[in-house]
């Protein structure tokens, strides 16, 4: 995945809570076996409504999604992350995320930023007032900045390091393959196999 250190871009306010992954990408888009082409499916049902925020030309090219609480709940489909990235998003900011979605995002280099609900709403209001407002998400400094504002966010050191280095998780684990072998040798003999 691409390394993420700091990103500056324009933001889209999505004033809805509980945006589940079925809304981010409906199941009909999950039939493909490739990893590309999912941007067309992003919010595809909602995008049919001309009033939907992503259809507002003022937000064209925005790369930061500022959403309501509990973003990415529901299905484990990583296609939701791929769709957001392929559409052009690098960051999603929300007060709370579905656990699996947040995990999937950090595996792919889409940065999920948790900010207090009141701060998220303030940022939404700011970009509604001025869609050209530039927002900086600084992973190194753990800070989101816009206008004269600067708000810190929390992320664990390990995930931050992995994102900043753009490291492949599998490669990291394989460095410890010997530990896995040692563990396997101690597993209980009654544990099932599928053959």
């Amino acid at each position, binding site marked *: 995945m691409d390394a993420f250190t700091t990103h500056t871009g324009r933001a889209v306010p999505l004033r*809805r*809570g*509980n945006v*589940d992954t*079925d*809304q981010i990408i*409906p*199941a*009909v888009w*999950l*039939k*493909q*076996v*490739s*990893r590309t082409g999912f941007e067309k499916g992003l919010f595809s*049902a909602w995008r049919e409504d001309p009033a939907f925020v992503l259809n507002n030309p003022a937000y064209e090219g925005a790369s930061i999604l500022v959403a309501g*609480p*509990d973003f990415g*709940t*529901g*299905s*484990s*489909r*990583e*296609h939701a*992350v791929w769709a957001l990235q392929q559409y052009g998003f690098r960051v999603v900011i929300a007060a*709370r*995320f*579905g*656990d*699996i979605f947040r*995990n*999937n995002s950090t*595996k*792919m280099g889409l940065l999920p930023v948790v900010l207090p609900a009141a701060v998220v709403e303030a940022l939404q209001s700011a970009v509604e007032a001025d869609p050209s407002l530039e927002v900086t998400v600084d992973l190194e400094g753990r800070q989101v900045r816009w206008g004269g504002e600067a708000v810190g966010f929390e992320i*664990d*050191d*390990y995930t931050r390091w992995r994102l900043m280095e753009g490291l492949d*998780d*599998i490669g*990291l*684990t*394989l460095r*410890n*393959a010997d*530990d*896995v072998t040692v*563990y*396997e040798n101690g*597993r*209980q*003999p*009654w*544990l*099932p*196999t*599928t*053959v």
Partner: protein
Amino acid sequence: MGRTLAEKVWEQHVVRRAEGEPDLLYIDLHLIHEVTSPQAFDGLRMAGRPIRRPELTIATEDHNVPTVRGPISDPVSRVQVETLRKNCAEFGVRLYPMGDAGQGVVHIIGPQFGLTQPGMTIVCGDSHTSTHGAFGGIAFGIGTSEVEHVLATQTLPAYRPKTMAIEVSGTLPAGVTAKDLILAIIAKIGTGGGQGYIVEYRGEAIRALSMEGRMTVCNMSIEAGARAGMIAPDETTLEYLKGRPHAPAGADWDAAVEYWKTLTSDEDAVFDTVVEIDATTLTPFVTWGTNPGQGAPLGASVPDPQDTDDPAAAARALEYMGLAAGTPLRDVRVDTVFVGSCTNGRLEDLRAVADVLRGRQVVTRTLIVPGSMLVKLQAEQEGLHEVFKAAGAEWREAGCSMCLGMNPDTLAPGERSASTSNRNFEGRQGKGGRTHLVSPQVAAATAVTGKLTAPADL
């Protein structure tokens, strides 16, 4: 200080622990299906990596298969299923394909084969993997990157979630099911209430549930935001497991049982959060909105958005659902009834539906989809399919079907369902479709009257 069940199982699976890093957790069983695995296999191929333990991996075709006999007519879906077959052949994974007696919904076949056992770690690229926690293991859904990780390493790096106890005291009144209980729990704690937690369901009402009922409860942990839900193993668990094809036998059984009996939360264990529910107060429960937390007792009315925690979300949900505040839920007319899914597609669910439909006629389109081919066979051996057909319901082949509407089983725009599945999201069962989540018993009674109904109302 004592340890919780979740802590015991987690600690048993830590391969590596280092300061400032997530634990590396060993995975005992990896379930895969056609929808979330193809990109993971591509990743393995690109990196030249094999599957570390193919014999701890099992595959089936469920999400995107038709539930009528015959070939897959949609060419894109056919390619997806064929891709799984090619990948399993190339990488040496045991596959239960369409038409095979072992095929079925991934979370139904694991327990049915005895592959799901107490104390195990189980993952799958599907959020309802939490189902398997009913046996006292840690089971959770993962994304495709993690599917690839498990295939390559049989491990996952993960931080241990916090622990939540949901204590359900008393006994469920007659006519109130495991599904009503979990819907009521989700309505109480909310769709985000379990975020960051492993939930352990405890208490008298949980102990009284069958394994199938326990699976229904653990299945919908994710709808409360929790990646995993679990129930300590007991005699009910052992009775279910004994003699199943992949369950231990002979001396192995005795050794396993000795270990499994240690899998309870210690009396002095401390949970990060405790939620208490009084089972005796519960009644049949249904959803009225577009997330699983927007539910109410069947005897209630569609709420006024102003009386809910999130008025804007509730107003939007009612608009999508085409419902007016104040309408009694029993007056809501339904076009289609769906019985099936990893939540309620097991034999006991089908028996409950048959008990309601016997000697009655359905007035809605009614799809009854067994969770696996074995469930189908068992139901037919009991003659349940004859009851369904005589009542005018459709009896289908096994699959996920209308739970997620990937295959041709979908709602039309504006069409309303009573569904035994797990999600009432906008468009979940078909674009523009409107879903009410219900128990199998309520689904069956609703099919008879065409309005949301409990069997006791008939």
